[in-house]
């Protein structure tokens, strides 16, 4: 449930050239949370001269402002997207990618961005310090950093031939990681589960799909899997030079939030030493730690965000 009482507008929107802001009505846009849906909001905003005071997702939207419900129509979003890319290809890319970031109020930042693009043309994109573009550029940098790290930090486990991994990113990175992992493991079958956004990327035989999955139960790892996890931990510990010990440097490059899904940082017993007898193995609770990777914690109270 989103309650929209506060008003947050980018300064640019107050400041300017596009006439008397009073001629535009303030409304709350309710849409399906998709990128296409957002572009339709932009379309309707211009058609009805309505200013999006806030955006909210598919859930109940309770606000003192008028709520406009937007349906996603292919014709409309294509028209908006084409109008953006025809002004600047880079701008189209920025808008599309920024929609995957975890920037708070990203719809509003993007709305201001698109508006400035229509009003002034794309030259302001050259300046990353620009008032409207800067928060977006910063969010993109943050996401690119996360992508770069995750390409290396994703840890697969072999579940009888199928590779599986879980991640906990801040940004919605799966659609952007898709190309990299599908190219690298072209001859394998694999899945990556995003715990934060409850999304699953599945790939097999040249085809990949991204779908919403509320929770994921992983099977117990086999002996061979445990063996290679043990070898990897051995390697990880042996490669470090004791005289150069530098945890501060390690934390900088490998922030602790990534370690919850990385084999080498999980506690020893979870990583399956052969010393655990099979009977205990089987008795492990279903909801808890399976195969060294803790099951996702599901917060019942949190409804999906507007971003979806």
């Amino acid at each position: 449930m989103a309650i929209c009482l506060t008003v947050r507008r980018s300064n640019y929107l107050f400041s300017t050239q596009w006439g008397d802001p009073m001629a535009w009505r303030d409304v709350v846009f309710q849409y399906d949370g998709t990128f296409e849906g957002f572009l339709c909001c932009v379309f309707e905003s211009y058609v009805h001269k309505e200013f999006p005071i806030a955006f909210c997702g598919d859930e109940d939207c309770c606000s003192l402002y008028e709520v406009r419900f937007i349906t996603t129509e292919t014709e409309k979003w294509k028209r908006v997207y084409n109008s953006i890319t025809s002004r600047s290809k880079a701008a189209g890319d920025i808008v599309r990618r920024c929609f995957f970031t975890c920037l708070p109020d990203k719809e509003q930042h993007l709305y201001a961005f698109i508006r400035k693009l229509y009003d002034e043309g794309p030259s302001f994109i050259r300046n990353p310090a620009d008032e409207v573009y800067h928060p977006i550029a910063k969010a993109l940098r943050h996401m690119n950093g996360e992508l770069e790290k995750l390409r290396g930090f994703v840890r697969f486990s072999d579940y009888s031939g199928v590779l599986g991994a879980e991640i906990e990113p801040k940004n919605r990175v799966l659609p952007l990681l898709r190309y990299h992992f599908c190219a690298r493991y072209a001859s394998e079958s694999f899945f990556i589960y995003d715990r934060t956004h409850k999304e699953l990327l599945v790939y097999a035989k040249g085809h990949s799909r991204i779908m919403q999955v509320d929770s994921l139960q992983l099977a117990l790892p086999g002996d061979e899997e445990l063996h290679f996890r043990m070898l990897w931990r051995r390697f990880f510990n042996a490669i470090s030079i004791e005289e150069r010990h530098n945890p501060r440097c390690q934390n900088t490059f490998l922030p602790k939030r990534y370690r919850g899904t990385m084999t080498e940082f999980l506690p020893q017993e979870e990583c399956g030493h052969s010393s655990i007898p099979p009977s205990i193995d089987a008795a492990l609770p279903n909801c808890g730690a399976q195969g060294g990777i803790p099951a996702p914690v599901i917060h019942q109270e949190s409804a999906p965000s507007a971003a979806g």
Partner: protein
Amino acid sequence: MDIAQKLSILTDAAKYDAACTSSGVRRASRPGMIGNTTSSIAGCCHSFSADGRCITLLKVLMSNACCYDCAYCVNRRSNDTPRASFTPRELAELTIEFYRRNYIEGLFLSSGVLRSPDYTTEQMIAALRMLRQEYRFNGYIHAKAIPGTSPELVHQLGLLADRLSVNIELPSQQGLQTLAPDKTKEAILRPMGQIRDTVRENKRELVKYKHAPSFAPAGQSTQLIVGATADSDRHILHLTESLYGKYRLKRVFYSAYVPVVESSLLPSLDTKPPLLREHRLYQADWLLRFYGFRAQELLDEDHPDFNPYLDPKAHWALGHLEEFPVDILTADIETLLRVPGIGPVSAKRIVSARRSTYIRFEDLQKLGVVMKRAQFFITCGGRMRPGLQFSSATLLQQLEAVERGDLPHSEAQQLSLFDAVG
């Protein structure tokens, strides 16, 4: 001996090698093969060990049963340490299984000298061939060319690996003679020259024949040990520059000497590795490769070493105050790159931003400029940053104070009231 023990021993023996990058080559995945090398231009780090170094490749020795007796090396034959060797199949299986789980980007294969350089290289070739041909591995491979190997074997190795490297280890011939009596300067430089020539020739062949086999497409690199001998920073930097120029190296790595063996010729066992010095050398190396500096500009005969408490660029700027301040709005990109606190990325952003708008001091931070360093050296539209107070006499202290926050505690300096100012 089981595979886990072997892995521990041979990793432990390989850890002093600094090179662990997967950069320099983009190869798409091929049908029927495992992997690619397209992750990004700068390579891809898969983890970071407790010493803060990146783990990109499975870095192991083929064997640590070395017949040489280099004084600085942990694998010297007179050292009492457990010995082990991988069989080609063990190594190939380990690489493939680690790669499938996304633990690594590829393999880094080095080796102690087993019997003779030629025999060792043959073993390495057998392992790499099995990995490439039988296991169809298409990921990154970095292989060491052992000094003294015959040219035909180096050639075969280069056809299997993406990058080759020959370690110089000791930056001067004199050091080499005293500490590594089995190696000679010629034995090290010959394969380097051969690799350079073959890579060049191979580039030409690839233009003519699309499917010509590629030889070390990611070029070659080397490593220098810092702190085992008495060589100055200036000597090391000049050597580096000539290696980049003459031998077309992609990277030169520096490795702070960690005392591993007791020897009258070496620093004693309780010496700490000169990590700060190594860091300064890496910074200077970047200045050579990305900032358009020359080694002779950075250090001269009167100042053969860097000030460890100051980064090399600030060190240079302090000696050349006549070139500053630089105006952000008008300076060309080469001049901007020489300002402490401005790097290639922020310089590019400044040049791009000022085409569409008037840059103010407040914007510089958003453009990625490190203002606490840059502020002393720049003006914006002819004016210095408001409220900034300094003189050429206090500048050194102010810059050192900026740096102090970034240094580890043991390296930080106690301030003194009585130090000569400036």
